[in-house]
């Protein structure tokens, strides 16, 4: 079968995704769906992992071309490991985001990948950064990305409150991902959520049948 459609925006496997990150009181939640597609019509993987750990308490979510995103996160991971050995200290979240930003900006002609970086560090606590396609780096308390994000801007703007509790934030993130997956054909599968706090990291997986259902389902 023709696996590499040239009419699609992304060459090869695309993550065609929904990713989000949100700060709550004492930590940050970062999450994504788990679908990888080719040409917008074939689901090449139902269980792809888009939330990658780049350091002990720093995670990033990828969007765009899967090959480009995987390569950039691998390069960033090794860069950060080396950086933390040199500094004799765990890296800051902004450092991780900057590493991704440098790679995306310097190679913007060749790359088609965007990232959300979220984590916890001793200096500033929980933070969320967005590195967009061209290499812009912006810090936000809550952010969404990927093709499925367009369907949940309203929900996120209406429902996000600063200083939510951990459970409220998890519920908010799950609802947002479920809504996006319900409307976007290239987002789907399970919801991967990672909760990062000072005490540690927790990975929550919500399988498709346990996702919240809304009025029309």
């Amino acid at each position, binding site marked *: *079968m023709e696996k590499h459609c040239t009419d699609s925006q992304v*060459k090869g*496997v695309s993550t065609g995704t929904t990713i989000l990150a949100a700060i709550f009181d004492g930590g940050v939640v970062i999450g994504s769906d788990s679908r990888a597609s080719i040409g917008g019509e074939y689901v090449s993987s139902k269980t792809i992992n888009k939330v990658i750990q780049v350091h002990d308490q720093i995670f990033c979510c990828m969007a765009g071309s*899967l*090959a480009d995103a*995987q*390569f950039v996160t691998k390069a960033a991971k090794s860069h950060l490991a080396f950086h933390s050995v040199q500094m004799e200290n765990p890296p800051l979240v902004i450092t991780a985001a900057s590493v991704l930003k440098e790679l995306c900006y310097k190679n913007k002609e060749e790359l088609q990948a965007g990232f959300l970086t979220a984590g916890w560090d001793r200096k500033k606590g929980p933070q969320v950064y967005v590195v967009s396609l061209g290499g812009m780096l912006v810090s936000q308390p809550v952010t969404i990305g990927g093709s499925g994000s367009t369907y949940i801007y309203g929900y996120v703007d209406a429902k996000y409150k600063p200083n939510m509790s951990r459970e409220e934030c998890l519920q908010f993130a799950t609802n947002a991902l479920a809504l996006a997956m319900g409307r976007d054909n290239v987002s789907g599968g399970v919801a991967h959520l990672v909760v990062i706090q000072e005490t540690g990291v927790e990975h929550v997986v919500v399988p498709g049948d346990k996702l919240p259902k809304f009025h029309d389902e």
Partner: protein
Amino acid sequence: YALENIIHLKQIRHINIMLLISFVLMQDGVVLGADTRATSSEVVADKMCAKIHYIAPNIYCCGAGTAADTKKTTELLSSNLTIFSMNSGRNPRVVMAVNILQDMLYRYRGQIGANLLLGGVDCTGNHLYEVDPYGSVDKVPYIAMGSGDLAALGILEDGFKPDLELEKAKELVRAAIHAGIMSDLGSGNNIDICVITRRGVDYIRPYQDSEYKDNRYKKMKYKYRPGTTPVLTEKVVPLKLEVVQETVQQMDTA
């Protein structure tokens, strides 16, 4: 009309492995399967091509896409891993093979037409990875790739259970490839199976012969006894060799 079309076709006729390969992770190992047809557009170029390539004693790789690309990429990977093993004294891990492949294919931005499925057993367990020509990697419990993958995937999705036992896993892979062979023109001929477990590798080639095999080959022999072709003349010219110089060097074996 049909002939006209063929004459105007200017296509590079490279040999394609538009094939069918599938994989299943079972209880104590990995089962790889592949068909054995290699095509060059509409002609079958090789009826018994080997699509399951050796990477390391515990790692094998199935390749779909352009035949030359899959063969060369896997050979390069295999030699890289052998050198690494010798240098470090460690057995290669499947995840390392995957990383090397990913780096190589990503560097060439999809120009290397190799869809590879890597499977193997190492000290960390049984692993199956899928690598796309663009360099994206996915870890999977079962997968089919190639032109006949959709048909095979149907069988795999229906029959796959985690921790299958060996005979059931082999039968599942065989059934999946058979479905692909029946539904796809680019796949066909025999089915090869390779079973990798902690104890070793069982490369069964062929696991199942095609029902449409040409039985004439059994009767046709390509060995002819001396004298079948009549000898008209014979001329023998002995080559005279002269010893010009002789030196002896003692090896110090103390």
